[in-house]
């Protein structure tokens, strides 16, 4: 299952906004004036490479200021627009990025008060139009054009298109049948788990003979109904992470040009823990459990037009600085496009609603993953620390786990490892 889900968001209003252009208003004005005065410039002067890059990142090239001869837009101009995209732009960011602890809403030390949406240069191409065009390409339109609540194709369709293509041959029944045989499946717990060495070793389980293809709208319902979900919650003392981050952030920023965030520490700890507990890092696909020896980390992000889950590949092989860099770049590239073109298939997902003041929550498992980690807000609380009552920064994380794949004890040990790493964060740097 190399498909990634794009779950539909509650609010399905298609935005009229346009894609990122990264322009300051005055330069835009200048540009217009210039175009009007220069005859024949209704068309944009741009090099083919600049056009290609802009197209790739869904940037409207007309909005870029060219610095080449006679205002020609060069590839460097497009690149500078891409770099100018602030990482926090645009979306409700589910991971803590560009955020000092003091700025997190709900924190008693917060000077800024509630969540302030930052002013954004980025605008998005109408997502629906984009997806419709993709649907046209795939020639699957008749199958999909009834998906949204009022008949529109919703952003979430994308994942199912890809999944459909992969599972076309395997899909044997409709959703109705699927529900009927559900209890049997829940009983069936996979017995053996092997860890793949060079290539994934697939363990067939005849009892789990189902296909994972579902239409997108049913995706979450299915996941919710079908998985034997259990939830484990623990609290992590973030004080040391906070202190360490303050110390190393300037250096890392200097080195990578990216902000180092709490999420980076968490991704590091989770990646390490997943390698120790491969059951948590497995996929249930076509009745087979595939335990992965690598971690493709899905990072849930709420965007205006839906939830999307960009993937950072092979985080198990990265050191801390690489995690910072890859996380920042991945998010940046997501900001600049309204869907992910590259779709390698996550093995685990982390979702964070801490920055909107959620203390703890349990998310729905992002199929074909077997578990999802929900991250809450970092808050200051009175805690007993080495026998003394002290103010500590704490954060709650919850693991939702498919019981067919791993049991509570495995999940608990996984969380224990994450917690222990997070509370001794210096070790994460090595």
């Amino acid at each position, binding site marked *: 299952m190399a498909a990634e889900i794009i779950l539909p968001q509650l609010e399905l209003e298609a935005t009229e906004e346009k894609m990122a252009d990264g322009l300051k208003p005055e330069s835009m004005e200048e540009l217009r004036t210039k175009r009007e005065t220069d005859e024949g410039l209704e068309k944009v002067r741009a*090099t083919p490479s600049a056009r290609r890059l802009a197209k790739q990142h869904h940037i409207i090239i007309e909005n870029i200021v060219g610095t080449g001869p006679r205002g020609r837009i*060069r*590839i460097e101009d497009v690149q500078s627009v891409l770099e100018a995209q602030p990482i926090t732009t645009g979306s409700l960011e589910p991971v803590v990025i560009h955020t000092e602890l003091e700025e997190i809403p709900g924190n008693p030390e917060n000077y800024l008060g509630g969540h302030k949406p930052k002013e954004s240069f980025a605008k998005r191409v109408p997502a629906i139009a984009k997806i419709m065009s993709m649907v046209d390409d795939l020639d699957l339109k008749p199958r999909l054009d009834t998906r949204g609540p009022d008949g529109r194709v919703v952003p979430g369709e994308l994942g199912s298109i890809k999944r459909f293509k992969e599972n076309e041959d395997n899909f044997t029944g409709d959703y109705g049948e699927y529900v009927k045989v559900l209890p049997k499946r829940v009983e069936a717990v996979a017995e053996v788990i092997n860890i793949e060495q060079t290539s994934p070793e697939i363990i067939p389980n005849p009892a789990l003979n189902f296909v994972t293809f579902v239409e997108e709208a049913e995706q979450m319902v299915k996941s919710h109904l079908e998985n034997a979900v259990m939830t484990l919650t623990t609290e992590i003392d973030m004080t040391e992470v906070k202190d360490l981050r303050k110390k190393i952030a300037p250096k890392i920023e200097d080195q990578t040009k990216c902000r180092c965030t709490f999420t980076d520490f968490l991704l590091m700890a989770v990646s390490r823990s997943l390698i120790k507990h491969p059951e948590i890092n497995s996929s249930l696909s076509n009745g087979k459990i595939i335990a992965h020896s690598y971690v493709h980390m899905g990072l849930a992000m709420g965007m205006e037009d839906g939830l999307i889950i960009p993937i950072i590949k092979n985080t198990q092989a990265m050191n801390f600085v690489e995690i910072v860099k890859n996380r920042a770049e991945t998010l940046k590239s997501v900001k600049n496009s309204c869907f992910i073109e590259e779709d390698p298939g996550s093995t685990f997902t982390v979702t964070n609603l801490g920055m909107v003041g959620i203390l703890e929550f349990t998310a729905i498992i992002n199929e074909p993953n077997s578990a999802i980690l929900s991250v809450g807000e970092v808050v200051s609380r009175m805690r007993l620390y080495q026998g003394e009552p002290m103010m500590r920064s704490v954060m709650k994380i919850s693991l939702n786990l498919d019981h067919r794949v791993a049991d509570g004890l495995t999940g608990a040990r996984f969380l224990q490892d994450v917690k222990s790493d997070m509370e001794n964060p210096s070790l994460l740097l090595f």
Partner: protein
Amino acid sequence: MNNNEIQNMTYREAIRLGMIEEMQRDDNVIFMGEDIGVYGGAFGLSQGMLEEFGEERILDTPISEAAIVGTAVGAATTGLRPICEIMFMDFVTFAMDALVNQGAKMRYMFGGQTQVPMVLRLPAGSGTGAAAQHSQSLEAWLCHVPGLKVVTPSTPAQAKGLIKAAIRDNNPVCFIEHKLLYSTEGEVPLDEDFIVEIEKTMTERPGKDVTIVTYGTLLPKAMEAAAFLAEEGIEVEILNPITLYPMDMKPIVDSVIKTGRVIVAHEAAKTGGLGGEIVARIAESEAFDYLNAPMIRLAGLDVPIPYNKELEAAVIPQKSDFIRAVYRLLDHE
């Protein structure tokens, strides 16, 4: 017989060595041209060959290019492998009917029942003060005729490898040699089996900022310009399409994808020159989407080559033209 030795020799000696080796290897190879026997060639290229191979195989011809090429086409169809020397490429005009309407067409018109394994050696290019009728670079004409292969080496090793490949080829091959390069020296493998395949583009210098595609006498100038620019930190990649037709475009396309900027340069006049063809092929290829700047052609001016040394130099792209063009592509101007 394998010989791993490498010897320093001139471009002129390399061509001569290539011809001699092939004539020793294959008795069907004959050599015809004006003043190539007793006199030893207008550029001294065939000295000693008459003594070695005799009048049967080294044929001094009357001053008629039409006769030389016409004879050669006929001889080639009977199974000989003639090499013709046209003293100056400019005089290929006299031989055009035999070459274009006969030599290039026969294999096609007779459904492959006959082959025309001949080589036309064509000394081309300016820089010798030989003026308008003895200085032209007419490769674009030849490339326009399907059925002819056109090759043009720039170093002694390429010259030896290509003349041997041309003689062994079963089609008419136009071997364009550059008069200014005759005295340039370089290392040449003495191995008798050393050949340079036809339809190959050589990377003469690796780089990442700008691609220069050039051949013939402009190659040394481009190399000098690249050395100058390297001191400023600009890395120029130089590609040499030693087979002009059929041209191996892949290295060129790959290079343009890498650098995003390209200069195509030749000595021949710009209008209707081969540079237009190369640029058009780049524009048609996937490299188009990677272009960071308009493609530039550096070529001879659209005038006959002047006799006066200063004017002659002004007509042909020089080292400084390459440097300026590179600056222009990098927006340094």
